[in-house]
C-alpha cells in the first residue's frame, strides 16, 4: 500500500516537501514504515533515533500495524511552549 507521510520542521525542510509517499507491504508495522522511509530517503537517516511516528494523531508503538487509510506523520523532537 502507498502511505502518505506528513513531514514537519527541519525534516520537511530537508526534503523540501511537507509529505512524501512511501510504498510498504499491506501487513507493515510502524517500524517497517520508518525503515522504508529511510531507505527511500537516505538523507533522513540521521533523524532515525529522534523522530516519533504518529498514527491518526496519536504517538504510535513500533509494532502497531498500519492500515491504508491511516494518517501518518513523523514527529521530530518538539519545541513548542
Amino acid at each position, binding site marked *: 500500500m502507498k502511505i*502518505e507521510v*506528513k513531514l*514537519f*520542521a*527541519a525534516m*520537511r*525542510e*530537508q*526534503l*523540501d*516537501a*511537507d*509529505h512524501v*509517499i512511501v510504498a510498504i507491504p499491506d501487513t507493515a508495522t510502524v517500524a517497517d514504515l520508518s525503515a522504508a522511509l529511510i531507505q*527511500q*530517503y537516505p*538523507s533522513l537517516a*540521521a*533523524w532515525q533515533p*529522534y523522530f516519533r511516528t*504518529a498514527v491518526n*494523531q*496519536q*504517538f504510535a508503538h513500533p509494532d502497531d500495524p498500519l492500515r491504508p487509510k491511516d*494518517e501518518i*506523520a513523523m*514527529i*521530530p*523532537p*518538539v*519545541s*513548542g*511552549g
Partner: protein
Amino acid sequence: MIQLTYETIDPQRVLDSVHSGQAGATVLFLGTTRELTQGRRTLSLEYECYAAMAERKLGELEAQVRQRWDLIGVSILHRLGQVDVGNVSIAIAVSSAHRKAAFEAGQWLIDRIKQGVPIWKREFWADGTCQWIHPAMPQRELSRMDEVQPLVAAGVDRQVNPIPAPLIDNLRRVHTNLRISVTDRCNVRCVYCMPNEVTRFVPRQSILTFEEIERFVRVVARLGVKRLRLTGGEPLVREDLPVLIGKLREIPGIADLALTTNGMLLAEQAAELKRAGLQRLNISLDCLSDDTFRQLTRRSGVDRVLAGISVAQKLNFDVIRLNAVAIRGITEHEIIPLVKFAREHHYPLRFIEFMPLNGEQREQAEEQADGLISGAEIQRLLEDHFGPLVPRPRPDPHQPAVHFCFADGVGEIGFINSVTQPFCSTCNRLRITAEGQVRNCLFSDDEWDVRSLLRSGASDEQVADLVRQCVAGKQVAHGTDRDGFNRPQRHMNELGG
C-alpha cells in the same frame, strides 16, 4: 479555550476567558521570546504545528489537568507564525477556588506542552542565520541539516569546512543558491519568455562547457553555495545533461540538485537524470488543454508534459512541483482544472506572477492592463471554488512562495508574487547564464564575465573575487514595480528565468 493562532495574543482576553465568580485565584503564564540564548541574539521565532494533532493533544492535556486538580477555567493559546522578540508565544490561564491548584496546574500544563505537543519553533538570529529547534538532536547533525546535508560527506574534502568569507551582500543576504542556465535554446516559444522568431541564439562555442560549469561550481561551493538549480532556456535540450549532473553531484558542499523544465522531454530523460543524481523537479505547467498550450507556447504538446510528469512521479524524485503562470486573457479558465489536477495527484502547485519582460509581450501586456493576474486574485478565485485556503508556514524563509493548503486537507498551493509582493529581502540566489556571465538578479542588467576568466587561465581565487564583486553589487530589490524600471536587454531564455 484552546487555540492555535496566527494573531497576537491579548493577555486580557486570555484572563477574561477563565473568569468566574467562583474563582479565588487566577494564574496567567506568558511564554515570551527571549533575546539572548547562549550568547546569540534572537530577532524572532517562527512556529509551525501539526494542527489536528496539536489541538487534540492540548485538549487531552486540559482533560488530564482537570482530573488532577479542581479547576474552574483552563485556557491555552499558542502562537503560530512569526513572533518577534519580547512578544508572547504561549499563554496559559487557570482559575480555581484556591491558589494552590491554579499555580500547580499552570506549571504542569506548560511542562507537558513542552514535551508532547507537535509544535516546533525556528529561531532567527541577528547574524542572519536561522535554525529549527529540535531538542536532543545532536547540534552537529542539526546544523548540518539546516545547511542541507551534502551529497558528498564533509569528511571527503576538508576544504568545505570552514567556509572562507561566504557570499554576503551589504544587506546581509547570504547567497547559497545558484541557478545555472545550461542553454539559451528551448523547444517551445512561450509568449511570456521568447519571441517566436528567435534570431540571436548564442553560438555553441560561447556556451560554457560542462568542465567550465563544474569548475565554477567548485569555486562557489567553497564560498558557501549549497543548492543548484539547472535551468535554461529548456535545460533538457542540452545534450548529455546527465553527465553534467553526475559531475555536479560529486562536488563537496553541494547538497541539492534541482531542475526546472517545461517537461516536454522529461518522459524520455527522467530515468537517466535521476540515476545521475538529480533530486528535485519543478515542471512548468500552465494549463491542461492543448489549445491553450499552443496559444502560450506556440507549440503543441501538453500531453507530452503530462506524460513527463507521470514518468517522473513513478521514479520517486524527492520533490516534484508544478509551476504555473496565469496570464490575463489566456489562462483564466485553466486555473481551476489545473488546481484539480494538482490536488488529485498530490503535486504541490505554485502560481508565479507573470512578469512582462519580453519585448513582444510587453506591448501586448500594456494593452491588457499589464497582463498580470495577481496572486491575490487567483487566491480569491480558488477560494470561491474550493472554499477557504488555510495559510501554512513558509517551509523555507528564502523560498519566495506564500503557502496554503485547502480546507479539506487535500493538496497544497503556493503563490510566488514576484510583482505584488517582492521577496527581494530574503533572496539568496545567484545566476550564471549559459554564456558564463554571473548575475545577482534576474532583473538587473549588470553581469560579471566569468567565462573570460575561465578561458584565460585565471586562478580559482580570481574567479571567487569576481563572484564576490557580483554579490556586493546586488540592489535592494528588483524594482520592476517602480517607474523607470529598465527591463533587461535580454529575453527570459537568456537569463535562466
